[in-house]
Structure formats: C-alpha cells, structure tokens
C-alpha cells in the first residue's frame, strides 16, 4: 500500500513536470512572452540535439566537467589535509581558526581578478580559482569534524598508545568523514559555479562561455540548451556524490 501510494505520487509529480513543460510550450507558441527571451522547449531541445550532433557542445561540456572535476579534486585533497592538520592540533586551531572564519564569507569569485592578475587568462588561473574557492567548505568542515570527534575515542587511543598519525588515520578521519563529505558536496557546487564564471570572464572554451556568447548574439534556443545542460550537470554531480557518500558511509548506517 505504501509503495503503491509512493509510486502514484511519483507518477503524479512527473505528470506535473510534464504539464509545466507543456505550459512553457504553450506560452512560447502563443508568443505570450517575446520569443527572443523565451524559445519553446521544442526549439531548446532541437538546439541541444544539433549542438551535440553537428556542433561541439560535447567538447564544451567535457571541458567544463574536466575543469570542475580537477579543481574540486585538488580542493578536496588540500582541504581535507589542511583541515586534518589544523583540526587535530588545538594550538594550530587557536591560532588559525579565527582567521579562517574571517575569510570564509569572502565570495570566492572575488578572487578571480586577483588570479587573472597573477596567472593571466589561462587554464591554470581557472584551476587555481576553482581549487581555492572549493577548498573552503572542505577545509572548514574537516576542522569542524575533527574538533567534534567523541572525546572518549581519543582517550581510548591514548590508552592504546597510538601515535598521532595513527590517531588521525584510524579514529579522527573516519569519524570526521561525514563532515568532510558534506564539505566536499558543497565544494562541488562551488566548483561548478566557479568553472562557469571563469569561462565567462576569461573566455575559456566551455559551457559557461557558450551560454554567454549565445545570449550576446541573441541565440536564445542555444542559451536555453546550455542552461538545461548545466542543470543536468548539477543534478548528475550531486547524485554522484550522494551515491559515493552512501557507499563510503555504509558502516555508519550499519552502526545505528
């Protein structure tokens, strides 16, 4: 019965989504909104398909994904390592945490001009910006995760005479992993946004650049196709990290 009603609701909400797309089509067909701004879903879909089959939309998508992934990976590793170092040492925490808290609200995109001044309009600049911006959520989450490890676990490691590296590897890192993964998830969103912004500003080949150029030349169907693609990318990455999270944290749900 419960499964039945869940399925029914799922079907219902798919139907609502289809209805909304149909409404969009209707609005576009009847030109209720200027078609320069709002092409129908049919035209956007066609632009998406021609972009893939005849244009180089696939290459652009790949460029954006690649940029985002490497930046995010560097950010995650650096953030987790730095966070582990700071989080496991009360001295470092006392000296560094206030500065980090102060830097946290700084919009990551505000560092783009600085990065351009230092690295020029290169792919290295884009990577540096993404890595720097996406590192913050991971870094702060890791520090938080390390700081909130059950104190009794530390007492156990003391009783067992663990070295500091062993404490970090065997106790602190696993128990901070839910926090770190939550930080990495946030970092992924930041990485996607920064990839798009960097492509727009620096004119690097990719989806961000493509949608901006489409808008500038009033190619609305191409623009909407790009936005749909970016939405799909956002959805896919968040779904991927959810799966990863579930896999990695299996022990945690088992323990409960």
């Amino acid at each position: 019965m419960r499964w039945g009603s869940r399925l029914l609701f799922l079907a219902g909400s798919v139907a609502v989504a289809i209805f909304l797309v149909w409404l969009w089509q209707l609005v576009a067909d009847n030109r209720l909104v200027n078609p320069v701004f709002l092409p129908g879903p049919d035209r956007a879909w066609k632009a998406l398909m021609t972009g893939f089959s005849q244009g180089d939309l696939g290459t652009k998508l790949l460029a954006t994904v690649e940029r985002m992934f490497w930046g995010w990976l560097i950010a995650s590793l650096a953030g987790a390592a730095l966070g582990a170092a700071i989080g496991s040492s009360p001295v470092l925490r006392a000296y560094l945490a206030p500065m980090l808290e102060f830097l946290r609200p700084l919009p990551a995109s505000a560092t783009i001009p600085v990065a351009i001044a230092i690295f020029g309009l290169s792919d290295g600049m884009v990577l540096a910006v993404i890595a720097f911006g996406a590192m913050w959520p991971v870094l702060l989450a890791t520090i938080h995760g390390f700081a909130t490890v059950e104190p009794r676990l530390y007492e156990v490691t003391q009783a067992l005479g663990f070295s500091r590296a062993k404490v970090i590897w065997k106790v602190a890192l696993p128990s901070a992993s839910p926090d770190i993964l939550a930080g990495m998830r946030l970092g992924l969103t930041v990485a996607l946004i920064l990839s798009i912004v960097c492509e727009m500003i620096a004119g690097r080949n990719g989806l961000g650049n493509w949608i901006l150029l489409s808008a500038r030349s009033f190619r609305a169907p191409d623009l909407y196709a790009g936005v749909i693609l970016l939405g799909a990318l956002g959805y896919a990455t968040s779904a991927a990290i959810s799966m990863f999270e579930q896999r990695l944290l299996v022990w945690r749900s088992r323990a409960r």
Partner: protein
Amino acid sequence: MKSGWWKGLVVPVIVILLAEVAMRVEGSTSLSLAAPSDIAVALLRSIADTSLLAATRDTLIAAGAGLALGGLMGLMLGILFGIASTVDRLMEVSVELIRPIPSVAVLPIAMLVFGFGFRMEIAIVAFSCIWPMMILVRSAMAGIEPRLLEVARALRLSTWQRLYTIVLPAALPRIIVAFRLAAAMALVVAVTVEIAVNPLGLGYGILVAQQGLQPATMLAYLVWTGLLGWAVNALLSVAQHRLLGRAATVGVTR
C-alpha cells in the same frame, strides 16, 4: 579560551608584516600584488573619493532586493510545501529539475531579458535565494513538535489560525537561520554577477582595478568585500541571538 583571543591575530599580523617587508625589499612594481601599506592607502583613498562607498551601496541594494524577493518566494513555497504534503510530493520532480541549475547559469538569460543593471542582478540573486530558503523552511515545518499540531487539532483551529498561532512561531528559529544562510549567499551571488558581467558594485570595482593595472586598488576592494561579508554575517548572527535568545542554538537539519 576567551583569554587567548589575541592568538587569532598573530598569524595575520605576521603575514601582513612579511608581505610588507618582502614587497619593500624587492622594490617591486608588480602589476598583480601590492604591499599592505599601499593597499591601506588605496582603501582610504577609495573611501575618501566615495567610489568605494557608492559601489558598496549598489552591491547591497542589489543583494538586499534580491534577498527580499527570493527569500519571500522561498518562504511562501516552503510554507506551502510544509503544510500541504500532497502539493510537496506532486511538485517534487519539477523542483528537483529546476533547483540544480547553477545560479550563474541563469545569468545570460537575465542579461537577455533585463540587460545590464540592477534588475538583472536582483533577478539572479532572487533565483539563487529561493532554493535554500524553501528547503530549510520546509524542513523547519517538518521539524515541528507533533504534539503542538495535535493541540491545534484538538482546539479545532482553522488552517490559517493553525499556521499563524502554532506553526510559524514554532518554526521561527529555523526560518531565521534559513534567512541568515540566504543572506550570506545573496551577497556572494551579487558580487559574482558583478564580476562576471554586470557593470556596477564592488565586483565590478575589483575587475576594473585589475584591468586598469592597479593592484593596490584591486586588493583594497577585495579586502573591503571580505570585510563586508564578514560584517553582514556577524550582524545577522548577533541579530539572531538577540531575537531568539536560547532558541537560536537550534541545529539546522537539511
């Protein structure tokens, strides 16, 4: 812990001093970096000729208006989805399809529709504020003590009365936390839009200083933007604790 507050200042002060010494010794005329003292001078000069203050005002207006618009929409959607679970479940797929669109991806659409200026920036900020607000408000509704709702049922309150006298007050602490998160995000998105395309505000100021090869001014704008972000966050945090007292410590469940 309280007696060690000065420890937080040690590292930044050392970094600033080192940077100052390094730039002076080098005698650098770098186009990308500047000595901290030059940055401070540039900051004071930008404040004195009011260019910085005008940019701050523009950014705050755009972020504030976008926050008000998007926050209100998110609040209403969150309340609607929170009390009417049927609506929530029927809209699930649609919401999940729109929500992952990165805020900056709608930027070219807003540019196409509104051109450059405040309206475009406000639209993007609003779009990005709707989702966190909606989701947190919805979960705030779900987190209400069920016995309160039973009381409401026993008292035979109408839906409107129940919303007004029971649900909203009970969910208020979390709604305010949601608002705080949305406000921090509004500022970030506003600066991002300004850096990417929109010729106004602090973000544009940073970009123009960079393109004009004035590293001191660029970094001064950057420092100021950081200060502004920190101040907004601190102000909201204080306001939250003032308004709610001990209730402010509720966790945010996502």
